[in-house]
């Protein structure tokens, strides 16, 4: 098995493009706690990768390392041609910070708790970064925001403050806000875990549409049904390494690794 997740010699599925995210040898310590123990990961353009595993398996840490919200202890991440080496001792140097910022422009993160800016309207949330970081004019940013708010079905809420939205609406605005930066990859960190059950569907629907349209995404999730529907590849993590990966039918229905089987059995029981 290669880092691409597809067996050696066997090419990735036809509809996928070239490799756009390339992580090598990622390791992360929190103090003495060895959370990531060497992860290689390749993600292709237009691929939807879902990461599953029990809590504490390192899946969220892996995702956060991909755009350096956590600085890996060692390893490198390349996104769309920009390669950044982990450098924890000089993590705050200006040059390194700027590289990390460039990585984040390519790979945007969505959070479990949405993290909309409460002091700005929905529209304000969406145009803040485009106008201040991408240097596009306000009018253009608003057009862009309207387009993506339309996509998540919330254009009529553009003048509301986040406090007046439901959890599902907040997460959809957060998705629109990320799309306004037109990143190459979307990283989702358990995007539905903080939602009431009846609100999960609307968020997953938006994500599924994005996946079908060919948005490259890496999703940490507990929604097995969603993974089965929308994933090109499912990764199962355990003890800080990728224990098993492959097409969803294989990993979810017919796992080779006993740890995967054990996890899925317990997961389906609860």
């Amino acid at each position: 098995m290669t880092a691409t997740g597809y067996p050696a010699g066997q090419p990735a599925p036809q509809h996928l493009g070239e490799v756009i995210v390339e992580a090598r040898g990622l390791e992360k310590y929190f103090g003495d706690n060895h959370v990531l123990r060497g992860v290689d990961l390749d993600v292709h353009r237009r691929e939807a990768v879902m990461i599953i595993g029990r809590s504490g398996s390192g899946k969220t840490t892996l995702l956060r390392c991909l755009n350096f919200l956590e600085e890996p202890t060692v390893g490198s991440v390349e996104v769309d041609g920009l390669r950044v080496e982990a450098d924890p001792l000089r993590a705050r140097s200006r040059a390194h910070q700027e590289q990390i910022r460039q990585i984040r422009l390519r790979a945007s993160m969505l959070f479990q708790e949405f993290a909309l800016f409460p002091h700005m309207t929905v529209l304000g949330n969406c145009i803040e970064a485009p106008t201040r970081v991408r240097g596009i004019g306000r009018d253009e940013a608003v057009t862009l925001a309207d387009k993506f708010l339309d996509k998540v079905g919330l254009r009529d809420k553009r003048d509301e403050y986040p406090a007046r939205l439901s959890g599902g609406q907040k997460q959809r605005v957060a998705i629109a806000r990320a799309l306004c930066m037109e990143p190459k990859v979307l990283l989702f960190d358990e995007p539905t875990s903080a939602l009431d059950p009846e609100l999960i569907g609307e968020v997953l629907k938006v994500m599924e549409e994005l996946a079908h349209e060919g948005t490259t995404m890496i999703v940490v999730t507990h929604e097995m049904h969603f993974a089965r529907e929308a994933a090109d590849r499912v990764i199962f993590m355990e003890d800080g390494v990728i224990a098993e990966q492959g097409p969803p039918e294989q990993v979810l229905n017919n796992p080779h690794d006993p740890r995967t089987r054990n996890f899925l059995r317990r997961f389906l029981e609860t």
Partner: protein
Amino acid sequence: MAGGGVQRVGTIDEIGVPTRAAILDEIVAAQRRRRRWFRGQFAFVWIVLVGIVGVFLWSAGRISWEFIFTSGPYILGGAGVTILVSAVAMVMAIGLALLGALGRLSVNAIFNAVASLYVSLVRGTPLLVQIWFIFYALPQADIVLDAIPAGIIALGFNYGAYMTEIFRAGIQAVPRSQREAAQALGLPERLVFRRIVLPQAVRIVIPAIGNDFVAMIKDSALVSVIAIQELLWRATRVGRSERQLLAAIAIAAVVYWILTIIFSYFQDKLEKRMARGDR
């Protein structure tokens, strides 16, 4: 019930709805009466207590109307100086507190050490000592300040240290996910702070800053020791010379009280307005 039997009035459906509404009305009205009664008692207690103290002091204290009318306006004129000194010192304190908070949260050892030393030193010594130090002690080192600048600097410096901790707590109270979301959108650090963290921190600290301003108005009485002609200085001056200290100090106290009530009122308004966006 007369006759002992249960008199049939109607089915639940026939009488239920209007009766229920009437009961609700009655409960609401009773609650309103109770609140009004509470407010009435409350005001009564205040008036009686303040009245007793006033009458006692008036009768026992040989207070002259003439003093109140001739020297009252002079004392009152000190309120302007009190407000001026407090307001300028507050602006200075807010600036110092913002810098101090950034220092206390900085990973730069030098910046952090300077800010921590400032907070420790200023909070560890009495404000009165600081006022003396700046106005009476520094001239020996050829640093001579006029009274009003010295008083403003002492108050601003002192409150800046206390408010450093308020700002630090306010900045830390902004959820980490807010920073991270801004970073994930590619905002550079200074914009993350200026556009996302600071506005939310300011909202959090406004009540505490308001409290400190009210406290500053009262602590500004301490600068009377360096002959700044504010409320207390004027009250003690005319009070002593006319042998009417009781009336003079009482007037000053009442003016401080009224000033703090006025500012608390505006602070309350401001807080309510700031909170509106959260709903």
